[in-house]
């Protein structure tokens, strides 16, 4: 009986320890939100909703702060990153899971995942010294000759700017999206591949079946990539040009993002309202990533709906 009671005590202890660890995650998130709101309270009181729709950022004279251009900048650079990065990542994921022999695929995955281990400041340096000059001299002039009739690709070319930031971000999200999509494609039961091949499908037709089976997982992978692109700070700050404007004159022009302005101006925030405005930018960024993740869960849950009850091998 005594033994039993001692065992029971162990159970309680385990429950307490695991419960504490589990709830700590939740508590930390709540604390972060609390501190962000507390820190930005001055700015919230002063500007209210105007902070989200304001297009002026003037710490020097009028001391008004509006974050809308930063939201645009963040959305557009992340959008460019997805536009370029997602097709490449899906291609990489498919080659790794469907075409390569297993050992080669393993080695290649290893190298691709190493890309994710490169610190983002290194990406930034590479962006400034290698990628931006290369794009300026060898890519953008041709792009402009081809598409210069649209405002998106007209105007002066500096090397850095919106498109360069998007391209850097695309490179940075490829490892994330491709390694998750590879896992998702590999998890597709072989019986489905065999079923479609036995119907006389070509390799490509079989791959399409694999992709359609894996689509919810792929959406998850893309959203994770989006989360990384939205929050990415250092590399973007180093190449985007950091100019606060509602819209840039073209994709070659400089712009700003939510994350970049915090990193850039934090040390310059010499008075409370300025600092508070920057913290509110942080709050917006946090809510952004939170919303992206919630949206992703909803999409994934919906996508999974008709797939419940299938026999997975």
């Amino acid at each position: 009986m005594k033994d039993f009671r001692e065992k029971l005590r162990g159970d309680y202890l385990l429950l307490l320890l695991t419960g504490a660890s589990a709830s700590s995650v939740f508590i930390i998130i709540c604390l972060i939100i609390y501190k962000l709101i507390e820190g930005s309270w001055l700015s919230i009181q002063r500007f209210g909703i105007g902070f989200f729709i304001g297009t002026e950022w003037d710490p020097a004279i009028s001391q008004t702060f509006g974050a809308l251009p930063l939201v645009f900048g963040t959305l557009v650079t992340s959008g460019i990153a997805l536009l370029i990065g997602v097709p490449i990542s899906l291609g990489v994921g498919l080659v790794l899971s469907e075409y390569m022999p297993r050992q080669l695929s393993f080695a290649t995955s290893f190298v691709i995942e190493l890309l994710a281990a490169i610190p983002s400041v290194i990406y930034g340096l590479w962006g400034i010294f290698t990628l931006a000059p290369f794009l300026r001299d060898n890519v953008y002039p041709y792009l402009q000759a081809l598409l210069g009739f649209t405002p998106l690709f007209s105007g002066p070319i500096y090397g850095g700017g919106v498109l360069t930031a998007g391209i850097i971000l695309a490179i940075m999200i490829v490892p994330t999206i491709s390694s998750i999509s590879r896992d998702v494609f590999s998890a597709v039961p072989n019986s489905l591949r065999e079923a479609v091949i036995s119907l006389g499908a070509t390799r490509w037709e079989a791959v399409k079946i694999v992709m359609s089976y894996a689509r919810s997982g792929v959406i998850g992978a893309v959203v994770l990539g989006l989360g990384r692109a939205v929050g990415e700070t250092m590399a973007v700050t180093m190449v985007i040009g950091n100019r606060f404007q509602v819209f840039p004159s073209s994709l070659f022009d400089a712009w700003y993002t939510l994350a970049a302005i915090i990193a850039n101006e934090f040390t310059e925030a010499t008075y409370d309202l300025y600092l508070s405005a920057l913290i509110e930018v942080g709050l917006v960024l946090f809510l952004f990533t939170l919303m992206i993740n919630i949206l992703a869960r909803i999409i994934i849950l919906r996508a999974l709906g008709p797939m419940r009850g299938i026999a997975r091998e």
Partner: protein
Amino acid sequence: MMGHPYKFEVEKLDAYFGARKVLSNINMKIRDKAVTAIIGPSGCGKTTLLRCLNRMHEIIPGARVHGKVLFNGVNIYDDEIDPVTIRRKIGMVFQKPNPFPMMSIYDNVAIGLKLNGVRERKKLDSAVERALKMANLWDEVKNDLQRSGASLSGGQQQRLCIARALAVEPEAILMDEPCSALDPIATEKIESLIRNLAEEYAVIIVTHNMQQAARVSDFTAFLYLGELIEYGSTRELFENPKNPLTEKYITGRFG
């Protein structure tokens, strides 16, 4: 068809997984419009033999085949033959029901036709109905064709897979232990379906269940350790086996 009394003629067929030989010198002629059962203990190569008949064996990395398989008198392992066109003429049903879970019942049946380039709604509609009727599934699903294929019971899923194979109007149907994951009632339905199919197709069925082979098949092949030990009419093989190994196996003394 076209002067060939046999649907398949297997000649000196060897099959390998890497260096391991799993089939050795198989010679076997398979009749049209009849059920041929392939029996034998686990690991004897019966599934591999089946998969050699529509070139599914080779999609496994490291798998190879030597020898010939004539289908309507044409060697499907000839260099100029595209395996994709062969598989379109030979339907296959697998051990585990494997409908496409992300597709509706309708699309599961129509996919083979769509892969063949059929787009007209009317043609698809009538082919889906015909295939589901042949698979004895039509009455159970006709009011709900847009439901997910994964929502059906195991036996229904397997009949859906049979309908999927039949929709493209193949010339032969290969079945790899189609009832092994099903309960007795579902099994009975599939078995009677197999008998019906034999009126129009060459049906080749792999089974580890000797009673099933005896019930459904016209001809039976007994495979042991990658070799064809005995092949003949089912009745003859079960009632009067010529090889002592066959006798041992069918009387349950090993397996």
